[in-house]
């Protein structure tokens, strides 16, 4: 679960990471007032769950209260399109108004889970403020990593080593070490999958300040973080994806026309590969997930049918936990509720497959059955 920069900065500040003075505003008038209070100049930052905000025009430096009002008016209520969003972008409903900082250097710091190490690692790079994935791809040797052994935590020798590699002078090195320790506490205490500061700046007077702040909280751990659940901002999520997530369905909107209903993430990805290979791009990734009953299947199909781009539906269900008759009933329910008439390619295998096929056959829906992935491929191609 992503949270906003200003929310992450509140958490950072509680852990004594220095952040710029700032105020969240939701109207142009508030923005004007906030900038006036800050002495007439500030930076306005669109609060959206997407990277690449700066290049997309979501960050504006203003030199007067009037400027601020104008800039805020243009940003608030708009949708921001960045390289990380789709073409619709994400809505800008709030701005973070922050003091302008005297930036001498921009660094990158993050903690995430390393699968090979099977634990958290701290990443640091002297080239902050940039697209870190680009650095990782082009100059991997410029990214320094420290694995953090859970039983010890982040050790001082590691923060010293990172500070040395970032070539920080004495005072800044010590402040940076404190920031790193705080980041690790934030990471573990909040079950984060990512804590990132990009850029972390060194000011002209050698202070270390988190200019940006990113925290992703692991969704699976939210059950033990009641305080964090309230930070979710549904407005930032794709409505269909959010609806699906609420029901325990993994749904990702894609650009094609074939609506896909699959059980299991691996089989769902395989299904994308098959339809793509058949020249029929999928409209979505959908894994109906574990513990699905007919209502959950129906919800999944309704979500698929809610996408106007979908012109046919592919069902690929391997009956195991999810029985084929249950899946079939859910599909029929959803088509009836939506009054949908789209053609269906259905491949079902496993538990209660005959009952499932019978239900679909008797439903009046335009069903083509396929038994193998090859047949699926052919059927989808034909229907395209």
């Amino acid at each position, binding site marked *: 679960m992503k949270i906003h920069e200003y929310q992450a900065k509140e958490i950072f500040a509680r852990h004594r990471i220095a952040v710029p003075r700032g105020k969240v505003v939701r109207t142009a008038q508030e923005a004007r007032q906030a900038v006036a209070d800050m002495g007439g100049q500030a930076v306005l930052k669109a609060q959206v769950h997407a990277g690449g905000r700066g290049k997309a025009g979501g960050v504006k430096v203003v030199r007067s209260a009037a400027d601020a009002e104008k800039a805020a008016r243009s940003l608030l209520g708009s949708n921001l399109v960045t390289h990380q969003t789709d073409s619709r972008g994400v809505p800008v409903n709030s701005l973070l108004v922050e003091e302008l900082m005297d930036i001498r250097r921009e660094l990158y710091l993050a903690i995430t889970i390393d699968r090979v190490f099977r634990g958290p690692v701290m990443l640091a790079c002297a080239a902050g403020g940039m697209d870190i994935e680009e650095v990782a791809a082009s100059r991997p040797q410029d990214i320094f990593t420290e694995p953090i052994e859970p039983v010890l935590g982040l050790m001082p020798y590691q923060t010293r080593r990172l500070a040395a590699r970032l070539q920080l002078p004495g005072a800044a090195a010590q402040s940076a070490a404190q920031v790193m320790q705080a980041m690790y506490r934030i990471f573990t205490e909040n079950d984060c999958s990512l804590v990132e500061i990009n850029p972390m700046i060194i000011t002209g007077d050698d202070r270390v300040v988190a200019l940006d702040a990113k925290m992703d909280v692991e969704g699976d751990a939210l059950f033990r973080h009641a305080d964090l659940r309230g930070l979710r901002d549904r407005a930032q999520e794709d409505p269909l994806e959010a609806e699906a997530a609420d029901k325990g369905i993994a749904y990702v909107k894609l650009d094609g026309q074939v609506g896909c209903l699959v059980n299991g993430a691996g089989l769902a990805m395989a299904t*994308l590969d098959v339809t793509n290979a058949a020249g029929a791009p999928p409209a979505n990734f959908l894994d109906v997930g574990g513990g699905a009953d007919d209502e959950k299947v129906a919800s999944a199909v309704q979500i698929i049918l809610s996408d106007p781009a979908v012109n046919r539906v592919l069902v690929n269900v391997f009956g195991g936990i999810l029985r084929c008759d249950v899946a079939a009933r859910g599909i029929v329910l959803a088509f009836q509720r939506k009054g949908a008439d789209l053609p269906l390619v259905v491949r079902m295998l496993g538990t209660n497959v005959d009952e499932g096929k019978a239900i679909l056959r008797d439903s009046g829906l335009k069903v083509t059955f396929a038994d193998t*992935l090859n047949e699926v491929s052919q059927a989808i191609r034909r229907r395209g």
Partner: protein
Amino acid sequence: MGILLDESSRIMVQGITGREGGFHARACMAYGTKVVAGVTPGKGGQVFENKVPVFDSVEDAVRETGANVALIFVPPPFAADAVAESAACGVPLIACITEGVPVQDTVRLSRYLERHPNVRLIGPNCPGLINPGAKCKVGIMPGSIHRPGRVGVVSRSGTLTYEAVSQLTNLGIGQSSCVGIGGDPVIGTSFVEVLKLYNADPDTDMVVFIGEIGGSMEQSAAAYIKEEFTKPICVLIVGATAPAGKRMGHAGAIITGESARAEAKVEALRQAGAAIIPTPADIGSTAQALLRRMR
């Protein structure tokens, strides 16, 4: 014959009194698996399906029934505890089916398990494992699609494993064992560890290996295959057409960095000498061709 499970495997189901646990315990029993105990704290003394005694603790279950395999269905907040309990009792094989275990729980568990070298965890977030020849199913896979034989299957994904098995069985190719290692970023047993077991198993002639985008576990497997693996192996990597940066269902399927991409994995495995399965539809046929070449 086969790996990890055999006729002497005695299964204890943790969370047997839950809906999922009960359903799958029954399915395992129907397949022929020796389910000897259930564990649900507070429900000790019950009898599941008039056959299987339920205990309050793993300690009691192991002492009373000699259970030597744990199959875990408890909800995510309690999954780490269930794994640790079985590990502390020295249960040598633990399959944790539970989906949604917080990663930091698994991280800590992984360190705990390092102190118990005789305990192996499969999963979490996995379909479990099966040995069709021994009629022993420890997981949620549909038993009926399997057939005893001499091909080993290993995969990160659940239903995709069934797909693979189904294609094999449809062509008359039986399986020595099938292991779903799980889709979470941190898991108990890696591809390499399962491949080592297959390498040493005299009853496995060939391996079908299903990887996916995300992480670099397939590259580690490639390195192992190149260096030490002595048997024919064919590999499918799914997710080649998944869009970058998007989260695809389970945490295993996020694309991050070059090595996580399907092309990089396919290339590493090809160079290691594995036969590449071109599309998910070709699992069975590729395996069949490879088997024919062996003869």
